């Protein structure tokens, strides 16, 4: 009995000690947002793990020749998207087949990538790490490289009692940083919180948005994050059939994950293949260029009707979804002291 009590006390003492070493990060869902989907109990956020996740996010050590980091295609200044390129490019200037999506409000999403091939945020990073045209590396080798680095050895040792660097930990830390990328301080959000008001033009645009766009780009996340065929003409240089390539179900042909409308000004070009450079091109697609096909979204069976003035009003509203506090948040940025030392140093 005495031995048991002794062991119990040791266990209690150790748990207190372990807890003390970590600062809990309280994830606060914005008031106007639904309950997050991500299960934080399985990966409880801590200040230290978020910091380590950020370090990994900005470190090209994740790629096979240490040239490409997550931020290469997900830049904080572009709401973590990749501008100027219709198709994102990775290692050795290889060009991929899709436009890197913006990263924000990831805790509310269930499937990742344009085709939903990835079923959990924790597993998402494996795809770009392993892709030959992105980072061309393996998670096994990433763990081995990190384990040889003084900086990472120290950072992991601060967090994990056994000091081990594992694939699970690398991926969970990357998730932790990305989960903190919450964008909910656009003018739209402030209007909803009654801290601001729409101009007349924005209000008219909001009404148009509610009538014409909100079925798929639903408030407050401005996407249902479901998959839809929005009537784009197939690009025969890519022949990308989207979700069908994952499910092999013909009903999913040409369907892509519906992107959020938040931070649109920062995330051009638009669509899965970045074919439209301007917002107005996107609106023109919906009013004039919808291609009929068996899987076309029911909401787009008839082209949207919007006058030129209405398009201007709609764009005025869409610009209220830009969250400058998010895009220029210094906490999300790269800091030079984060970068790891080259191999062997």
């Amino acid at each position: 009995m005495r031995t048991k009590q002794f062991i119990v006390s040791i266990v209690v003492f150790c748990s207190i000690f372990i807890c003390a070493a970590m600062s809990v990060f309280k994830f606060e869902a914005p008031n106007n947002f639904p309950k997050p989907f991500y299960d934080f109990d399985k990966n409880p956020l801590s200040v230290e793990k978020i910091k380590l996740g950020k370090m990994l996010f900005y470190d090209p050590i994740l790629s096979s020749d240490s040239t490409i980091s997550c931020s290469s295609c997900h830049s904080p200044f572009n709401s973590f998207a990749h501008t100027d390129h219709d198709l994102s490019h990775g290692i050795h200037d290889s060009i991929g087949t899709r436009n890197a999506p913006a990263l924000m409000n990831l805790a509310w999403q269930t499937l990742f990538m344009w085709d939903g091939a990835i079923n959990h945020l924790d597993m998402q990073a494996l795809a770009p790490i392993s892709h030959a045209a992105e980072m061309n590396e393996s998670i096994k080798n990433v763990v081995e490289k990190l384990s040889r680095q003084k900086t990472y050895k120290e950072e992991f040792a601060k967090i994990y009692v056994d000091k081990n660097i594992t694939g699970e930990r690398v991926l969970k830390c990357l998730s932790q940083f990305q989960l903190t990328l919450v964008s909910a301080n656009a003018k739209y959000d402030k209007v909803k919180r009654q801290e601001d008001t729409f101009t007349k033009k924005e209000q008219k645009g909001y009404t148009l948005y509610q009538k014409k766009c909100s079925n798929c780009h639903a408030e407050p996340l401005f996407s249902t994050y479901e998959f839809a065929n929005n009537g784009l003409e197939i690009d025969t240089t890519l022949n990308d059939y989207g979700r069908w390539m994952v499910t092999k179900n013909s009903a999913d042909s040409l369907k892509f994950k519906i992107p959020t409308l938040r931070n649109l000004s920062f995330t051009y070009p638009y669509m899965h293949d970045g074919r439209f450079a301007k917002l107005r091109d996107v609106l023109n697609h919906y009013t004039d260029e919808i291609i009929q096909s068996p899987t076309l979204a029911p909401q787009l069976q008839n082209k949207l009707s919007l006058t030129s003035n209405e398009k201007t009003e709609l764009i005025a509203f869409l610009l209220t979804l830009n969250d400058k506090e998010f895009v220029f948040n210094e906490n999300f940025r790269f800091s030079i002291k984060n970068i790891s030392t080259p191999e062997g140093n």
Partner: protein
Amino acid sequence: MSKYFFTILLFAAQISFAQEKTLFVKFNLTYQEAPLVLNKNYANNNENLKIDNVQFYISNIVFYKNGRLLETNIDKHFLINFEYDSTTIIDYKILGDQNFDQMKFSIGIDSSTNMSGVYGGALDPTQGMYWTWQSGYINVKIEGIASNCPARKNKFQYHLGGYSFPNNTLQSVSFDVENTEMITINVALDNFLNQIDLSKNYEVMSPSAEAVSLAAQFSKIFTFDAH
């Protein structure tokens, strides 16, 4: 409050001190009724055959006595990799001194585990048993070289996985077993490969109907070794 906390802790501690029995389950990979040697040349219907990689996940191990499920205290996934002998014996604890006459286990990883994010240990993606381009564990990996296989360098590769309908490759097997501490399960790989025409069907590496049928075929080569 703290008193309750202490009581709960003490209770938890007592459970962990309860009598446990450790069982060992040993997987024997065989070929033509002898232990399979990786990278060894075998003659198979006038063709040369070499097997260099055999790995699979074992999960949800449960024991029964007269059809009644016995209490167990761990829920673990094991990766059996025949390159490393140490992974071919797994130890498993059951509570108390319980007798059993039947065991069941799954070959592969269930869909709920597949969909709930990253895990460590045997399930860590660094094990190379997780697809990166599309989420999902590879439940069974069998790779080798066959002289009649038309692929590059005559390599055949079966990466059997897929966790959702209609391509769920998880298999469940059940055996009548003797109540011993060391349970030996034979895995007769020739019985699997003999049913495949390696000149035609040599690469299965994504969730598909073919993967499901191969996974079912693979599960049939597991037998309880009565000696």
